[in-house]
Every structure is written in structure tokens, then in C-alpha cells.
């Protein structure tokens, strides 16, 4: 039982990192990025390619983060300059395109990814520590840096920020880049567990969406906690009740949210 909880926390750390990415993107640009999981998947492939080329794991990681940042900023150029529903459909188009590209480049063969953390229940501490570090780093950047201040200004009132000379487009790109880095963390974390393949983030995306929705797509701490809880709930439900129940956990969370949170969620910016 305890072992299952730890295992669930490991899965939950992945969901939490991806949910964090979704919250960042939505909070700073008002878009729910359905392509976030696929960007994370590509990041994992990039990391694998670097390690495969002979780089050490801890050198490949920052390089991957940089690549993810660039990819996220590039994706923002495509998406955010549109009306809300067009932007959402655009992210779905990106999802399809990125998935198909990965399928073309890396084929659907399963690939093993090096796991830097020790196996067993204690290995869970690794992913959790990474997610905690990312959360803390983002908090520091957003709360205590000049760029973070600009980000928050744009999130609060884009027009006013623009009028006071902020380059809103660039700030949006920065937000998307930061989110892609958080997403890349989730991709690199999940890769050793599920093997690399283009469809590996499918389940994680739904769980992360549910976790992010629990925080109204605005509250990073709730999103991270939600991701961890969903990970544990999925593992427990899958082990002790019924294996197919796993897929129902995020859906159940999503359907329960309006009842539980009531008006709290209606204030979500679209």
C-alpha cells in the first residue's frame, strides 16, 4: 500500500510538472495549450538523442531545457494572436502536427530512456525534488525578477502593459518558453517510466488538464497538489479496484470540480 502511494507520487510528479506548464501558459496568455504534452514528449526525445550521442545526462538536461524554451516561444508565435476559440483550436492543430512529426522522425518504436534516480520507493524522492525545484525556481523568477514583474503586468492588464512600453508579444513568448521548460521536465521524468514513444504523454495530458483545472488554470500550487493527488488516486484505483478505472480518475475530478469549487472556477480568464 505504502509502496503504491510512493509509486503514485512518482506518476503524480509528472502530472504536476505538466499541470504547472498549463497553468503558466493560461495565466500569462489566456490559452489552454493542448499541445503542451506533445512539446514535452519532443523534449524527452531531444534529451534521449543527446544522451544517445554520448553526452552525459546532466549536460543533456540543460541543453534540452534550452531547446524546449525555444520551441515554446516559437509555438506562442503561432497561437496567441488570435481570438480565444481559434487559439484553442490552433493548439490542437499543433498537437496533431507535433505528434505526427515525432512519429515521422523517431517512429513509434519504444525506446528505453536512462533513469538517473535509483529504483524502488526511495527513487520517488528524485522526481518530487525536481518538481519542487522547478516550482521554487519559477516562483523566484516570477516574483523576484524584472522579467517576472513584466510577466505579471501583462497577465494583469495586457493593454495597459502595452501602453507603458512593454513588448507584449515577447513577454508572451517568455511565458510560453518557461512553460515549455516545465513541460520538458515532465517529459524527461516520465520517459524512464513509460519508455519513449510518440503517444507517451497522452494519459499525462488528461491528468494534467484535470489538475490544472482544479487550480482554475491560474493557481500553480493547487495544480501541483492536484497532479500529485491524481497520480496517487490513479495508482490506487488501478491497483486495488479495477485497472481500467485509471482513465476515469481525471474525468471524475473534472466533473466533480464545478460542484466542489462552485463559483471559484467561473472566474477563470478565457
Amino acid at each position, binding site marked *: 500500500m505504502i509502496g503504491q502511494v510512493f509509486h503514485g507520487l512518482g506518476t503524480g510528479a509528472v502530472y504536476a510538472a505538466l499541470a504547472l506548464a498549463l497553468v503558466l501558459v493560461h495565466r500569462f496568455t489566456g490559452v*489552454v495549450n493542448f499541445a503542451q504534452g506533445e512539446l514535452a514528449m519532443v523534449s524527452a526525445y531531444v534529451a534521449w538523442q543527446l544522451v544517445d550521442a554520448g553526452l552525459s545526462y546532466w549536460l543533456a538536461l540543460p541543453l534540452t531545457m534550452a531547446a524546449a524554451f525555444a520551441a515554446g516561444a516559437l509555438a506562442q508565435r503561432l497561437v496567441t494572436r488570435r481570438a480565444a476559440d481559434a487559439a484553442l*483550436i490552433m493548439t490542437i492543430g*499543433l*498537437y496533431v502536427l507535433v505528434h*505526427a512529426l515525432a512519429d515521422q522522425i523517431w517512429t513509434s518504436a519504444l525506446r528505453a530512456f536512462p533513469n538517473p534516480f535509483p529504483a524502488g520507493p526511495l527513487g520517488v524522492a528524485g522526481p518530487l525534488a525536481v518538481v519542487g525545484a522547478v516550482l521554487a525556481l519559477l516562483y523566484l523568477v516570477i516574483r523576484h525578477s524584472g522579467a517576472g514583474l513584466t510577466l505579471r503586468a501583462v497577465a494583469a492588464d495586457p493593454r495597459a502593459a502595452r501602453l507603458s512600453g512593454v513588448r507584449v508579444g515577447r513577454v508572451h513568448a517568455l511565458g510560453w518558453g518557461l512553460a515549455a521548460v516545465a513541460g520538458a521536465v515532465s517529459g524527461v521524468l516520465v520517459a524512464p517510466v513509460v519508455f519513449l514513444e510518440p503517444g507517451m504523454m497522452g494519459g499525462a495530458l488528461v491528468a494534467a488538464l484535470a489538475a490544472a483545472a482544479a487550480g482554475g*488554470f491560474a493557481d500553480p500550487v493547487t495544480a501541483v497538489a492536484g497532479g500529485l493527488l491524481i497520480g496517487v488516486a490513479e495508482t490506487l484505483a488501478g491497483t486495488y479496484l479495477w485497472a481500467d478505472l485509471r482513465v476515469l480518475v481525471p474525468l471524475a475530478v473534472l*466533473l466533480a*470540480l464545478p460542484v466542489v469549487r462552485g463559483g471559484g472556477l467561473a472566474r477563470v480568464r*478565457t
Partner: protein
Amino acid sequence: MSAGVSTGHDPGTGHRRPAVGQYAGDRRRAWPYPRWSLGVAVAGAVSVPFLVPPYPLHQVTLVLVYVVALLGLDLVAGHGGLISLGHGAFFGVGAYAAAILLSSGVPYPVTLPVAGLVAYGLGHAFGRPAVRLSGVYLAVVTFAVAVAVPPLIRRLAPGGAMGLPVRTPAAPSLTGLADDQWVYLLVLAVAAAAFTLMRSVVRSSWGRALVALRGDAGAAEILGMRPAAIRAHAFACSALYAGLAGCLFTWTTGFVAAESFTVTLSITLLAGIVIGGLGTVSGAVIGAVVVTFLPAPGLVSGLALILVLAVAPSGVTGLARRAPAFLRKDRR
């Protein structure tokens, strides 16, 4: 700001962009062309099974099936401005409801209303909580539904992962038609009825209320419209159409399997209606052709979706409408 999904104006950057699709609830006539051309169109549609060899006929029938599904999706996405990523799941539920009934010996005409009602019920169950919140939330919930349904079908439905083969409707012997010709005519009749009904729904006061909510939910609510109720009903009706289309799919192909109704189908349907043109009937027809003939989501459809949104947010239909003015060079 909280509920207006698409105002066509992005407050973030100050860029003006048209909203996706056109506004509906307009007063145009149901058939804006000369009356005789309606007769020609009907005669043409009815004569297809006698002119076309079996395999192309099967594909034309599938186009009609997807027309029904896309008409439904267009009600929420085009007119309501709400994005559903779960219509593949409702389609699949309708298809399985029909297949299970058919394989237990129920006559095929009964399966159509049952499939529709099952999907309608599910649409209410999922839509009612979801539409109370912002438009994004509906997309998220329906995405979760689309992901959850195929494993459940695989586990619970008869046939399991192997799928379920069923008998397709047989032509009554006195008509002297082949079975596939008969199925085509059945699907054509249902599609025509679905089309006419959707036309009047969209032009009804209720359909216009849905469009008004899309334009400015706050103003519409002050005028006495109930956003949650109207949107939930629209979503359920749209699911009903998807369920009917699923039933027609079973009639056409005679085989259902969970793999046909994954999230891929939901995305394909959404891509079809966006590429065809949101909020228009011809968009649903063009979209159905796209859904039938474009291979499953991949490079081509991903690129097509992004290009259409970037270049022509009103889809192929919108392009065609603007083409005459463009050629005459009196661009607005």
C-alpha cells in the same frame, strides 16, 4: 471577459482578428438558390447509388454519415462558440448502441432513435456541469471523455477489443435494390431530415439565443437568457446528432471497434468542421469530405488545420464566399 469566448478582439495584443466562423441565426432562406435547382440536387443525390460502383458508394455514404456528425458539432462549435473534443466518443457510443441492439436481433429502424437518445443522455450528463464554467472547461472535459471512452468500450462492450461485426440493414425485397444502395438511401434520408431540422433549430429563437450568448454572454443574460441551460441543451442536441451519425456508421460499415472511436476521431471531426468553415451548412459538407478522405490526423491534417486558422479562419466556405469580391478587387 469571463464568459465571452470569442469577441474577435484580442485584448492582449491589440490585434483585430475576425472570430472563427460566421454568426448564425440569420434570416437567409433555407435554399437560397432557384427552386428548380433543389429538384436537381435531390434527383442527383437519389440517383448516386445507381450510377456509382459499390466502393465509391460506400465512401459517399460515409460522407453523409459525417455530415450528420458535423452538423451536430457545428451547433456547439460554430454557433455556440464552444469547443468539443468529445464528439468522437458520442459517435462511438451511438455506433455501439446500434451494434449491440442489432446483434441482439432488434430491427434496425429501432436502433436509430435509441442511439440518438443514449448519446443525448450522455451529452446532458457531461455537458451540464461543464458549460456552467468557461468555454475552455468544456473542451477540457470533453477531451477527458474522448480519452476515457475507448478503454471502457474495450472492457465493457460485447466483442471487447476484437470489435463487433453486425448485419447491415437489408433492402426490402420488393424494392429490388442491393443492400448498399438501400443503406445509402436510408442514410441520405436521415441526413436530409437532420439537415432540415438543424436549419430550423438554428433559426429558432433558441438557436439565436445560443449565438447571442456567444457574442456577449453578459448582455444575453441580462436580456433573460439562461446561459447554462441553453448551452447544456445545445451540447446535448449536438451529442444526439453525433449518436445518430454513429448509428448510421454502424449501418454503413457493419463493424464497430473501440479503435475507430478514439480521441483521434474527435480531433478529426473538429478539424473537419474548422477546415470546412464553422457556422455554415456547406462547411459541414466540405468538412465531411475532408474527414472521409483525409487520412487520420497526421502531418497533412495538422498542417491543414494550422494553415486554415492562420490564413482563413472562416474555413473553405468563408474563402469561397469572399472569392467573388476578391476577384472583383473591391476588397473591404
